[in-house]
């Protein structure tokens, strides 16, 4: 069989130590095996997987969600439409779910803080936030977010006023939640791009708050 190639040597290291190409770990070889078999059957178009990887590595990420949040903070009509039915509103901005999922935006208020988890596996609003961080996929977060959300928030350095209730939303394959964080004090007068910089990934999962303007990192 020809034409099936792989490049190696992704990590800089001393070439003299390896007489042969660096052997990838077992699961990596199993993935290559699947790819080879499916490519041979004509099920995979060469280059298609690289394009998907490029999309998720470079084009889709929390910056998309931050754009949506900044728009909601600066445009009352947009905010209302977003809260009513987010899927078509974000699709208009080019953020749509490739897995056919429905997007729901839940708004933080002084009365209620929202937090998102997926107890099933790791469902997440990919088009708006990209690939979830490791902790979102961990058993610890998935179990504790529902059982003791305030303790989890404390682990993330978030302490809410006593009067603020915490509501936890469990994502599924069909419904993915995005938290609309509260607009930070002192952000009046900021333009949309400056506002978007205050919106962290965690603030849209509900394990963080939006940054204060000029607060530094």
């Amino acid at each position: 069989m020809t034409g099936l190639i792989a490049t190696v040597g992704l990590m800089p290291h001393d070439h003299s130590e390896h007489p042969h190409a660096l052997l990838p770990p077992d699961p990596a070889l199993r993935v290559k095996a699947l790819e080879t078999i499916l490519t041979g059957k004509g099920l995979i178009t060469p280059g298609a997987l690289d394009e998907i990887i490029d999309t998720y590595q470079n084009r889709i990420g929390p910056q998309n969600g931050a754009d949506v949040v900044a728009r909601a903070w600066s445009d009352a009509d947009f905010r209302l439409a977003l809260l009513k039915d987010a899927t078509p509103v974000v699709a208009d901005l080019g953020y749509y779910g490739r897995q056919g999922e429905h997007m729901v935006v839940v708004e933080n208020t002084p009365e209620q803080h929202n937090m998102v988890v997926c107890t099933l596996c790791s469902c997440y609003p990919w088009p708006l936030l990209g690939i979830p961080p490791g902790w979102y996929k961990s058993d610890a977060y998935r179990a504790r977010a529902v059982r003791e959300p305030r303790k989890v928030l404390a682990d993330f350095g978030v302490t809410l006023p006593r009067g603020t209730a915490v509501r936890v939303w469990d994502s599924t394959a069909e419904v993915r939640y995005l938290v609309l964080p509260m607009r930070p004090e002192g952000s009046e007068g900021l333009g949309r791009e400056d506002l978007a910089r205050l919106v962290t990934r965690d603030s849209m999962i509900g394990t963080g708050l939006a940054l204060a303007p000029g607060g530094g990192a």
Partner: protein
Amino acid sequence: MNTAPEPVFSQPWHAQVFALTVYLNEAGHFDWPDWAARFSTTLKAHGLTRELDGGEDYFNAWLETLESLLTELGQTSPDQVEQMRKAWEAAYLATPHGDVVRLGT
């Protein structure tokens, strides 16, 4: 606050198995709720013996789910995958360091 971006995928094969699954879903071989249900079952089974950290073990569960789904769909068989894995392993071991690894040459 740490604002340094984390890599989206910590290992190249994590990205590969993710993209392969998304591609096959988009090509209509299975729907996403079905995938999520199967993946959830694998995660649960793995989580019974130890606490999963959401990293390497997460993608190991992902790969196991994809392998069994493809077997069920009749697209691959465990023997075929194992043979092809061995072929790749042999190709890596037979390729001088720095050269492009080719299968079956």
